């Protein structure tokens, strides 16, 4: 029965080489949901012939891990994706082989070794471009006055106590606010990660509920993922 100890599947090897990819999700690809993105990447790796390491359990599957989910509709070129391989590949080769098999809107920006733990993610920065039926200047002023309120309360669903009111005001860090010719640009730093995560959507919904005009379009880009001390997550 000694051979029972060896994994039946050749891909079940104990040595694994970990990589952290940084990818871009833009254009039409923005509408791929988080779950679908996982599947899309699995197929990309299959097509590219990347030797993925498989988890060992009843249902072995390729190890793919997104340290931070990107909300549907937000674009970004700073998204981390951790993978494990059963053999070592040069960073540039790994990047290029994957990119050759990517669908429109998805691209690997860089490949490297993971240096930090997922739990070190604490903040993310965003640029939001708003178009409303008011002038950009009016919109910018409205946003500033929205942020100057004493409290900004939003409803939060909890498993135990149903709907809760939470004050998000202390968590919103305004980096800049600019009225352009046709749109208003807002840059925010918000808490991100497992401990406490605040989406731009929640902030904008709160703004929309007090804003007197009508928001015609919102275009959000995630620009940075940072640690507690403000370092880039790498």
């Amino acid at each position, binding site marked *: 029965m000694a051979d029972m100890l060896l994994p039946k*599947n050749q*891909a079940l090897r104990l040595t694994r080489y970990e990589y952290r990819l940084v990818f871009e999700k833009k*254009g*039409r*690809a923005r*509408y*791929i*949901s988080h779950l*679908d*993105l996982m*599947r*899309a990447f*699995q*197929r*990309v*790796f*299959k*097509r590219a012939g990347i030797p993925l390491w498989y988890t060992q359990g009843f249902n072995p599957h390729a190890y793919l891990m997104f340290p931070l989910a990107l909300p*549907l*509709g937000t674009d970004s070129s700073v998204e981390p994706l951790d993978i494990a391989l059963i053999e070592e590949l040069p960073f540039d080769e790994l990047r290029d082989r994957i990119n050759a*098999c*990517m*669908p*429109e*809107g998805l691209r690997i920006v860089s490949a490297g070794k993971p240096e930090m733990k997922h739990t070190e993610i604490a903040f993310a920065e965003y640029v939001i471009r708003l178009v409303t039926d008011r002038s950009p200047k009016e919109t910018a002023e409205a946003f500033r006055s929205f942020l100057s309120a004493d409290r900004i309360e939003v409803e939060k669903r909890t498993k135990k106590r149903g709907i809760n009111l939470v004050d998000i005001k202390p968590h919103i860090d305004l980096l800049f606010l600019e009225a352009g010719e046709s749109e208003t640009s807002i840059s925010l730093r918000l808490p991100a990660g497992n401990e406490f995560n605040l989406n731009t959507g929640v902030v904008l919904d709160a703004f929309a509920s007090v804003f007197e005009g009508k928001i*015609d*379009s*919102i*275009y959000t880009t995630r620009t940075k993922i940072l640690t507690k001390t403000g370092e880039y997550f790498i």
Partner: protein
Amino acid sequence: MIEIKEKLEQLLLKTQKPARYIGGELGSVVKDKSKVDVRFAFCFPDIYDVGMSHLGMKILYGLKNAVPNYWCERVFMPEKDFEALMRENDIPLYALESLDPIRDFDFIGFTLQYELSFTNVLEMLDLAGLPVYAKDRKELTPIVVGGGPCVCNPEPIADFFDLFILGEGEEVNLELMRLYEKMKPLSPTKEEFLREAAKIEGIYVPRFYDVDYNDDGTVKSITPNVPEAKERITKRVIPDFDHAYYPDSFVVPFTQIVHDRVVVEVLRGCIRGCRFCQAGFIYRPFREKSIGTIAGETRTLCEQTGYEEVSLSSLSTSDHTKITELLTSLSDYTDKENINLSLPSLRIDTMSKEIVDRIAAVRKSGLTFAPEAGTQRLRDVINKNITEDEIIRTCRLAFAEGYQTVKLYFMLGLPEETDEDIAGIAELAQKVVDLYYETPKEQRGKSVQVSVSASTFVPKPFTPFEFEPQATPEEIKRKQGFLLDNIKSKKIRISYHQQRVSVLEGILARGDRRLSKVIYTAWSKGCTLDSWDEHFRFDLWQEAFDECGTDTAFYANRRRGYDEVMPWSHLDYMISRRFLVNENKKAHEAKTTRNCAEGCSGCGIKKECGGVYCG
């Protein structure tokens, strides 16, 4: 159309599964518009999740896009939530590759896979900003064409289409597009173009035929009204099926669809001749691909898509003349690549131990059989040549291999059916359950589940049962109740169709041109996505029938005479009326007919069509 794209960007975040409405999937073909001469919008009249699983669309999409100056794009029916957003924001129906409105295309083609998608065709034309009636679309383009199995009786929707394509599309689609490419610079009228198109074999232009009716409401005659229109239009067949076009690339969706895997077509047509089965007759003759072709297509598509599952598609995969060799060859490749090989459409009687082992090696989950009827006598009536012994033998084999679920498909309301036959369904299911318990504990799986699906029989054109009355909804309801009363074991689960859905399907399947008005009225009242239980509104359909003064029993529950002119009598699917009449008579005598492999029974298909067993 930057405008549509910009509008979409805001709306997509307000809808379910937005990836369905924006395109950009791997394998989707985007061309430079300035270098394209003919644009084709390939419409599947149901939602993305269903349409993207459809093999015919993958084939024709690849085929047309292989021509450098033709561009074929995909279009699906939006879900109701997104459809409302499109209408509120004045977004016309657009194609997924270019995001251009399809009303500006040269062709709009619908594949008609089931009758309950008819109202979706009207909805999609309307969403595109086009009049739904062909007579109201006076410009040359877009030319609205239809293909697929429902085209064997397209009469109920004839008023909405410019032309139909009968049979297999691999050659005739390109012939039609070439004709258009040639005529386009001459700026012909629509009538001029359609007259030329009518000369192409397999193309049916409904406006060129006058239909007259008898006093009793049956069709009296169908007469061509222009010289270009042939007396009878014959379906197209690809005789050299092994060398037929097959795509080397699939569009790989982001969001999960019904059949999310590589599909390779292994054979076309069926040797069996089950008397209820339309597919078994209209796709004749039986042709197959060689093992080399199938293996090559499998490998190419697995590599291109990155899918981890491949499925073999056909009406009856085990009828491939070299099935064991084929499965051996394929599983050598799929095992090595960690790819699942799935084999739907296996017939019980040809399943050897070797095949059962092959499938079991991949997944030991479920086994599906379609005995269709509960007793041997009724199986002889429908010419489903399976014996109870064969079912029991295979189930015994499967249970010993550890299989735990068995699905059994049956039909209620078949011609010559008695209560004894219905009780037979329950008895057969019970025997399968008993068989599990007879299997030694060390061999069998943990538990057993026998699922019995009892659908309602719907008589279809070009089958020996095209003459038969469909059981009334009341009768079906009684039969369903009777079946339930006869089920004793908790291990047996029963499911059946809504009777109203089957009634509508039956009416539309054998309807004539006068039903166009009913379909239009039902659609105007809000009927769309009829094949979805949550959207099906029989009350609105009933109103439409009443307002149009249509006697539904005339279409559904009436026995047709052997010499009656059918609404589809001018369409030639190469199955002779004499053969169908003969088969119908044999059915009533419970006499079976041998399958094509055992010997020719003279259905009418010519040997030039390339059938393996013909001539």
